[in-house]
């Protein structure tokens, strides 16, 4: 090939390769070749290749009576509309025509797809088709149009309200077709949630009646929607609550677990108004369906178990006879096993603890470390919960410690410490525990043992020797263990002052002089001061009676529990965290994520300059062709739809508090260094360089990351965050963060 050819090749669109072949196929004169090419294009799209350059050519195939082909073209449009917003207008005509097609499948397809093409030009033309399809004779089309109203509201709320679509939807709650009712309710409830001021979904006794009617005829998913709405309804009087419970309770028999959970939620909410006798009847009725949930797929089981945990915290007795159901199967996934343990401890009572204990002993001999530790912990929890069980539990724990498995021994020691705190009379086990001193390498277990030694120093002959060993290595210990050593040695001194003065001197010296942790130093100073005064005073303070512990089973604070019970079956009820804590704020807020999504799509288009230039070339060359094909007026090749950044489709989002409280003057997103895209974006001030644009967001992100750990509950068993954090508005955490962010920003400038 000559040099000239090569140079020419570099400027012209590529004549070889996949894109070229696909384009040739897409404009072929044979229908089957075109269809095949469309399929291949979609295939390439599925594989993650960027085929947005083919946009104009794919678009040419939109006017077809072949349903399969039409669906594929529509699918392509949905995926790449953002990259060619200006060209989308070429598709409008087909969409409008299709929305009037005699075949309801095509009418529905058209309106469904239009709502998914999140481009301004398309939205402008949605009004008429949507109005018509909402009144369509086919319920299939109506139910699709109902959802489309929610799509439109997401893109352009003003247009949605001005055209009275919300009122139409509200009327559609009375539709004779149950699926239309369900989808209308779904759409309205979404709109109501995002914009409560619209009062989109306000139930009246009349609509309530309609919903209860539709409930029995809906698909399973429709039932979930309606039940969820019913759970949020505030009944006017006892009679209404009674009626709702009566009508909803049969749904406990539905085969779909999410329907069952939704029904439980409704009855649980509304039965509060009823008399205690009816309440206990409903609770009794709820138990068997809840138990059956444990036979569903493990992931669903997990959701059910987390919810049952909540229900048990509110009503501890509902499943007291069903302990066996929660026995772990050897092939249960670990996350199910741990949750079952949690629940078994809650159910444990005077009558069933024997069964439970023999089961727990079995689990403690398994091999999964987390599970074993949790089982050991459960034995301790049972001991503290049920006094009658304590002796058997202690014996079981002693059996376990004799297995000498390292992590079992450590957990047993932690657990026995709590038992000693609650019940007197088990001091006999202490010598056995002390034998394992050298095995302990976890701060918790070491701390527990040292606490025991200090607390019972008068009963342990060699307490001073043991503690001496720990004082030797004082500086290498974890903070937590250091604190325990300090206290234990002081206790020892107060109990056996004769030969331990040197030891206490030594440890106080180390803790104050050689240590730079203020917690330890302060505690040491306090002890020192106390010990240098009247020893009887010191004794009465340090060796005072400690308040007894009542339980080691963690429970949620009542306010949070109440909130979570109203969220049954949702993610909040699974995480055991209020929605505000994980529905992100600031950089990870819902609005920000949506903006990031929109920007990602645009960036994908821009990141591929070759594709873009090819597209431009193709556009230039074939524009007339396209125009003729679609027969609509078209305002030239210039980018017609002026994309004002992410806010175009969602004007309301700029006023949202998340943004107002965000970094002033900082770009909201780490844009990946695409300066031109930053320019497209709405507010940011001119940035000196692309790299500066990324850093402040990253710096501000550190704080966000920390707070997001709180929202991430992977263990499934972790204790809830302290109440202050749960109930305080996360917004209150934001200002210092953003402050830090802008400081960094200033520093950079």
């Amino acid at each position, binding site marked *: 090939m000559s040099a000239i050819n090569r140079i020419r090749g570099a400027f012209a669109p590529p004549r070889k390769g996949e894109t070229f072949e696909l384009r040739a196929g897409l404009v072929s004169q044979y229908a089957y070749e075109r269809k095949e090419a469309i399929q291949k294009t979609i295939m390439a799209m599925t594989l993650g290749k960027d085929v947005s350059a083919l946009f104009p050519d794919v678009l040419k195939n939109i006017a077809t009576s072949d*349903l399969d082909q039409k669906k594929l073209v529509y699918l392509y449009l949905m995926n790449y509309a953002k990259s060619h917003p200006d060209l989308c207008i070429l598709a409008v005509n087909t969409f409008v025509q299709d929305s009037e097609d005699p075949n309801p*499948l095509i009418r529905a397809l058209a309106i469904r797809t239009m709502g998914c093409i999140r481009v301004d030009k398309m939205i402008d033309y949605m009004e008429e088709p949507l109005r018509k399809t909402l009144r369509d004779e086919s319920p*299939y089309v109506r139910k699709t149009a109902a959802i489309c109203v929610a799509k439109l509201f997401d893109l352009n709320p003003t247009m949605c309200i001005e055209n009275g679509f919300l009122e139409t939807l509200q009327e559609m709650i009375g539709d004779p077709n149950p699926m*239309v009712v369900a989808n209308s309710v779904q759409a309205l409830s979404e709109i109501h949630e995002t914009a409560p001021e619209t009062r989109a979904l306000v139930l009246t006794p009349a609509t309530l009646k309609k919903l209860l009617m539709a409930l*029995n*005829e809906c698909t399973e998913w429709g039932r979930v929607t309606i039940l969820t709405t019913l759970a949020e309804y505030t009944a006017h009087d006892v009679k209404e609550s009674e009626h709702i419970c009566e009508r909803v309770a049969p749904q406990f028999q539905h085969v779909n677990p999410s329907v069952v959970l939704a029904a439980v939620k409704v009855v649980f909410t509304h039965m509060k108004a009823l008399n205690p006798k009816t309440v206990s009847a409903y609770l009794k009725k709820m138990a068997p369906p809840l138990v059956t949930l444990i036979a569903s797929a493990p992931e669903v089981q997990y959701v059910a178990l987390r919810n049952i945990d909540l229900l048990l915290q509110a009503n501890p007795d509902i499943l007291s006879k069903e302990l066996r159901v929660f026995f772990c199967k050897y092939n249960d996934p670990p996350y199910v096993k741990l949750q079952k343990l949690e629940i078994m401890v809650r159910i444990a009572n005077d009558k069933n603890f024997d069964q439970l204990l023999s089961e727990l002993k079995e689990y403690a001999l398994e091999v999964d470390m987390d599970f074993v530790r949790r089982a050991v912990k459960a034995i301790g929890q049972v001991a503290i919960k049920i006094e009658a069980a304590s002796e058997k539990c202690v014996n079981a724990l002693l059996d376990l410690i004799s297995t000498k498995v390292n992590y079992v021994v450590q957990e047993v020691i932690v657990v026995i410490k709590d038992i000693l705190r609650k019940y007197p009379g088990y001091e006999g086990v202490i010598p056995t525990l002390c034998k394992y001193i050298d095995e302990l390498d976890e701060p918790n277990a070491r701390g527990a043992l040292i606490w025991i030694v200090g607390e019972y120093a008068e009963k342990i002959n060699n307490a001073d020797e043991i503690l001496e060993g720990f004082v030797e290595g004082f500086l290498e210990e974890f903070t937590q263990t250091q604190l325990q050593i300090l206290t234990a040695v002081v206790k020892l001194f107060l109990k056996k002052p004769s030969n331990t003065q040197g030891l206490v001197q030594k440890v106080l010296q180390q803790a104050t002089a050689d240590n730079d942790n203020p917690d330890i130093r302060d505690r040491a100073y306090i002890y020192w001061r106390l010990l240098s005064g009247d020893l009887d005073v010191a004794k009465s303070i340090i060796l005072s009676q400690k308040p007894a512990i009542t339980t080691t089973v963690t429970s949620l604070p009542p306010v949070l529990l109440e909130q979570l019970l109203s969220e049954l079956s949702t993610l909040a009820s699974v995480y055991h965290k209020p929605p505000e804590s994980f529905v992100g704020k600031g950089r990870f807020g819902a609005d920000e994520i949506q903006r990031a999504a929109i920007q990602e799509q645009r960036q994908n288009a821009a990141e591929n300059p070759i594709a873009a230039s090819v597209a431009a070339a193709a556009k230039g060359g074939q524009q007339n062709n396209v125009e003729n094909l679609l027969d609509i007026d078209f305002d030239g090749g210039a980018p017609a739809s002026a994309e004002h950044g992410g806010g175009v489709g969602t004007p309301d989002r700029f006023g949202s508090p998340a943004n107002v409280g965000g970094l002033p003057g900082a770009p909201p997103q780490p844009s990946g260094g695409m300066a031109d895209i930053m320019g497209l974006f709405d507010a940011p001030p001119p940035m000196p360089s692309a790299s500066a644009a990324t850093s402040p967001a990253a710096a501000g992100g550190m704080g966000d990351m920390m707070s997001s750990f709180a929202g991430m509950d992977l263990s499934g068993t972790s204790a809830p965050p302290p109440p202050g954090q749960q109930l305080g508005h996360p917004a209150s955490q934001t200002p210092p963060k953003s402050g830090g962010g802008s400081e960094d920003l200033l520093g950079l400038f």
Partner: protein
Amino acid sequence: MASAIFFLDLKGKTLLARNYRGDIPMSAVEKFPILLSEAEEESSAVPPCFSHEGINYLYIRHNNLYLLALTKRNTNAAEILLFLHKIVEVFTEYFKALEEESIRDNFVIIYELLDEMMDFGYPQTTESKILQEYITQESHKLEIQARPPIAVTNAVSWRSEGIRYRKNEVFLDVIESLNLLVSANGNVLRSEILGAIKMKCYLSGMPELRLGLNDKVMFETTGRTTRGKAIEMEDVKFHQCVRLSRFENDRTISFIPPDGEFELMSYRLNTQVKPLIWVECVVESHSGSRIEYMLKARAQFKRRSTANNVEIIVPVPDDADTPRFRTNVGSVHYAPEKSAIVWKIKQFGGGKEFLMRAELGLPSVRGDDEHGGGMTGGFGGSMGGVGAPGKGAKRPIQVKFEIPYFTTSGIQVRYLKITEPKLQYPSLPWVRYITQSGDIAVRLPDAV
């Protein structure tokens, strides 16, 4: 509500994705494998949903795939996870098996199905029989375009009108599976009967069916005297065709059935049942070089019944070798891939008792015993291991069997009334009973 649905391979690579709401960056999926393996390192118990940077990840695993849904809201988790399972169910009916290959081979129809099954993140039609009526693999001819079947949105959303059969027949299968957990010393720790009534329905028109069972509660509410045994079902679940409010009122099971095969109802009984096939096992370990198993199996049901295809699977150490067996019935083989010996008995008569002895060699050098410190169940961060039981877990003896013409609970179909008001045809109901082993686990005693 789900913002997007992904099909991923076990490494976390996207095979196919559908973005329903455009409100989450699709690149968030790239974090999923990282988050998952991080969580696995932290703990062996990684839950099926977690939240990271404002995005919630809900996933299930099926064969060599992850099905993942993303959402940024406080979504109904049960609904979405069930929907993912429903996708598996529907796709399996369409493509026989749902795995990496079938995703690649059927992407066109998968997109169509995903479009029909979910709209804007809300589940829509997931009834595979109805979907098959208008989403098919053969391309549609120009003249006859597919139309949405009326059933899609009907109150009777599971049956189309105009079905015709020459011979109107219904087959009822009452299948009970028995779940048992037996401790090493032979105590039944937990027993449960899970029953299901499956129907094969070949009826014309829109038939009304009414099913009568020997349900104790029904007898009590209607004040009828019972001849023979009545059973007390703990919890009943019905196919969506059954009118739940009628069942609530007078325990009548009335419905318009879907066409073809479906599960009409399932029920659960917590009654104490004795193991139908009782297995006793003694394990003897000889100075660490040889291990011996002595098994006794006894059929504890009536002499006129027979259990078919009985399989008793005994777990043995991973590194056992040179197996030797002796038994007076059936066949025994060593299955090293499962680290188990399998004792098969084709027919096991009621009241009979059989014995089996197995002896296996063990390598002379043994590692630490089972509790080698710190084993977390063998996940080791590899995405492949999630959900599988820990490798060294204490596995129980499993028992499998099938006993035809017999139900453990004593449930009986008293009648099945079929009326089709317009067509008024004669019809034939057939009923079969069968008991199967469900999950039967006998804990293995420690070696003596």
